[in-house]
């Protein structure tokens, strides 16, 4: 019973949430259109959470991702406003993410600052930089090229369903590609297995010949790039950029990774589990909104579900230990 709960409790819980909404909202929840909507709504969070998983498998985390998402969004928008071509502006914004990620990596792995402190400091710096670059203003309207705004509304036509054209949203596709890439890197490369080894026991990994410092540094680069990409996706979705719009992504992404960890066999972060965590949080938002639950009550419920999942996982682990 204990090991069953330990291994499948969270997955059953996640499924139960979906079934609950399916029953409560028989006509509008379990529809292809709604799920495509959810996938699009979650695409930015998925990119942040999945790349966050890369540092979390080493036992580190990155508090600066939300501020980086805001920064990359305003960098791209300011360059648009200067009249630069869209690909150039996006490349610069991604480069900002890469550099920010490398900076985090240097602070954590070479200088040896705790990730919490290092990324808290860079979070403040990135956020300040976002205000500096944008002058504190929201950049929108004519400054945002139509082709960039249109990207978030475009997609891959899948065919017609009940007379309506069904489109796989472009943002969903981006999130799927990032998830696939990170999954391959973490699960199917030596590089990825070494990151897990660092997370298991950094000293043992070092003694076994793993270049811990370089690997930790490079992992933060992933997270920075992911955050920057998510910031660009956000800016495209709202066809505007302001210096705080990505900030909320950070805590939700960390929550999603933790929620996902409760669903894995060994309690370690895992890309697909992270996606399951993100989807659970997104389904709660979508379903509770459709059920007209007050938005503040919704926040309380989402927190309670996270606690419940983590409690089941912790109780299961303790029960196994006691046996």
């Amino acid at each position: 019973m204990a090991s069953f709960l330990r291994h499948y409790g969270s997955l059953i819980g996640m499924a139960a949430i979906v079934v609950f909404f399916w029953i409560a909202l028989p006509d509008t929840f379990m529809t292809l259109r709604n799920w495509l909507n959810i996938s699009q709504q979650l695409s930015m969070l998925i990119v942040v959470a999945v790349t966050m998983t890369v540092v979390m498998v080493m036992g580190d985390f990155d508090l600066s991702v939300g501020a980086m998402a805001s920064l990359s969004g305003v960098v791209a928008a300011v360059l648009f406003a200067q009249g630069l071509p869209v690909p150039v502006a996006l490349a610069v914004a991604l480069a900002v993410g890469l550099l920010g990620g490398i900076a985090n990596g240097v602070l954590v792995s070479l200088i040896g600052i705790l990730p919490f402190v290092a990324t808290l400091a860079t979070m403040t710096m990135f956020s300040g930089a976002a205000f500096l670059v944008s002058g504190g203003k929201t950049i929108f309207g004519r400054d945002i090229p139509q082709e960039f705004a249109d990207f978030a509304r475009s997609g891959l036509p899948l065919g017609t369903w009940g007379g309506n054209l069904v489109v796989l949203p472009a943002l969903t596709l981006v999130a799927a590609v990032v998830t696939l890439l990170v999954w391959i890197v973490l699960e199917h490369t030596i590089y990825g297995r070494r990151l897990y080894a660092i997370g298991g026991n950094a000293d043992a990994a070092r003694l076994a010949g793993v270049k811990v410092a370089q690997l930790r540094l490079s992992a933060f680069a992933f997270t920075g790039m992911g955050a920057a990409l998510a910031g660009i996706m956000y800016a495209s979705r709202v066809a505007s950029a302001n210096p705080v719009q990505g900030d909320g992504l950070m805590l939700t992404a960390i929550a999603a990774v933790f929620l996902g960890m409760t669903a894995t066999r060994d309690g370690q972060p895992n890309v697909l589990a992270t996606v399951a965590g993100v989807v659970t949080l997104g389904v709660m938002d979508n379903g509770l909104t459709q059920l007209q639950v007050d938005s503040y009550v919704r926040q309380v419920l989402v927190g309670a579900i996270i606690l419940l999942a983590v409690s089941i996982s912790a109780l299961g682990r303790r029960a196994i230990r006691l046996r």
Partner: protein
Amino acid sequence: MTGITRRSFWRIAGLTLATAVAIVGSAAFAEGEKIAVITPYLSQPGTQFYVEAFQARAKELGWEVNIIDTAGDVAAVISRMEDVSAQGVNAIVLNVDPAQVGAGLDAAVAANIPVFGMDAGADPRIKANITSNGYAMAAETSVYVANRIGGAGAVVMFVFDAFPPVQVRGAVADAVFKNHPDITVLDRVTPDVSDGGIADSRAKMEAILAANPEPGSIKAVWAAWDQPALGALQAIEAAGRQGEGIVITGIDANPQARDAIAADGNFEASVAQDFQGIGSTTADTVARVLGGETLKANVIYVPTKLITSSNAKD
């Protein structure tokens, strides 16, 4: 699993489930028209006023209103618009610039759900935006200034042309002052607003006062919103020139401005938006459209009120 852990597990699970079911159950099976009000700005005072007035009117109409606050997250506004479109509400009321939530408007249009703006901005996909008339508000204060100084003298203007709703106010004041041949605009200042607008306006006004030391060389300060008016007031008082009769006006009549106006000093007038009126008029407009009426105008203005020392404390 041991007995204790199993019991505590079921207790946690049971409690959470019971709470969820109770909350969800009370909301899910209500009757009446379903209206979703979506805003990222519920914590701001003005927004609270019109949301409360909207709810009060909606209650009279027997509607089921779902207030959704995304706490500053504009992308979440789009997401929630998609959710309530899938749910099939009867109408959506928005309180955010439509230019930022185009994808959400597309979802509502596709689901055939009318969208209304509550001080939101105009968009072809919005049935009507209910707001205050910025042109009229600026006309009220600029004409007040022109009349108070007898149509003659130097006026300092505080404007902010980068933000469209405020640009409109400056354009109207320009026209009013231009129409008086003896009024000269001494300076047209755009303050730095990153600190809220008061401090930098004060610094700018101090510089202007220093450059124009003779009493009577500045007759009035017209500000496109209250913060620069408050900054100018501070500068004038700090320079000890409050006795020169420099007339200051603002727009919005925020609490700080009302206090200054009530004190009967240089800050003489501002214009108050009727937030409650915007809320209840939005509800009435939704009712008209749900009742089958087609609206001719897609912007509906709610009258504003000039605030002077006689009514600043009302």
